[in-house]
């Protein structure tokens, strides 16, 4: 009886010494920008999911910042 009680006591006592693992799940894999978005107001000038179309769209938007290509001298 006392032996069983001792084993039980040890089991309970040692259980308190355990530690939960603190391993991070790691970085999540990001979705590509060219996949588009189902939520925001997507510019309709390109086709979502088409990387080449997205590239062209970004080049076009970048050139939109170039006043030399927008205004004649």
């Amino acid at each position, binding site marked *: 009886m006392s032996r069983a009680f001792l084993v039980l006591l040890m089991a309970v006592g040692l259980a308190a010494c355990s530690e939960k693992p603190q391993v991070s799940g790691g970085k*999540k894999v990001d979705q590509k920008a060219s996949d588009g978005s189902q939520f925001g107001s997507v510019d309709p000038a390109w086709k979502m999911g088409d990387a080449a179309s997205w590239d062209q769209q970004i080049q076009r938007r970048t050139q939109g910042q170039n006043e030399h290509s927008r205004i004649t001298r």
Partner: protein
Amino acid sequence: MARMKFICDAERCIECNGCVTACKAEHDVPWGVNRRRVVTLNDGVPGEKSISVACMHCSDAPCMAVCPVDCFYRTDEGVVLHDKDVCIGCGYCSYACPFGAPQFPSNGTFGLRGKMDKCTFCAGGPETNGSPAEFEKYGRNRLSEGKLPICAEMCSTKALLGGDGDVVADIFRNRVLLRGKGSEVWGWGTAYGKPSSGGASQPKPAGTKS
């Protein structure tokens, strides 16, 4: 594949802080955090220069190198992003960054520091593109909408350029070459007209009769 970069033209920046305001509004950035800010050199002295600074999305990013939990990653477009679910807010990246880009919101009592926040080049984070979860943590994902960062696209003087590094470098180089000075300055003829096209006539020297 585009390699996204910012460049700021100190000759054009008028320190309006429009980029700072637009960024805060677009991403609902919390109090005490400025993902972008305008730095002025020789403030108040004639000839002062201002420049808009945020994360430069370095090709060899020191923040990535020092992060003890490896929460940073680089997208295919060269944008340096981080996963806030992995970040422990230690602040190492803040010490490593030469541009002061990493920001830490005060989170709760006793000035408890929250997870790092920084410019995302309007590319969000690792959550689903444009999702509410992504917006809450990182702000809007304009790249996935086929748009460029709001700060650059709304810059009134186009001092701040954002986009493919090669393209913005070409725009900037061309601008510098054609900049000119005085009445030769680019855009002068557009605004005031040229003498040959009905612009203001040259003033005559004093003492001459018309």
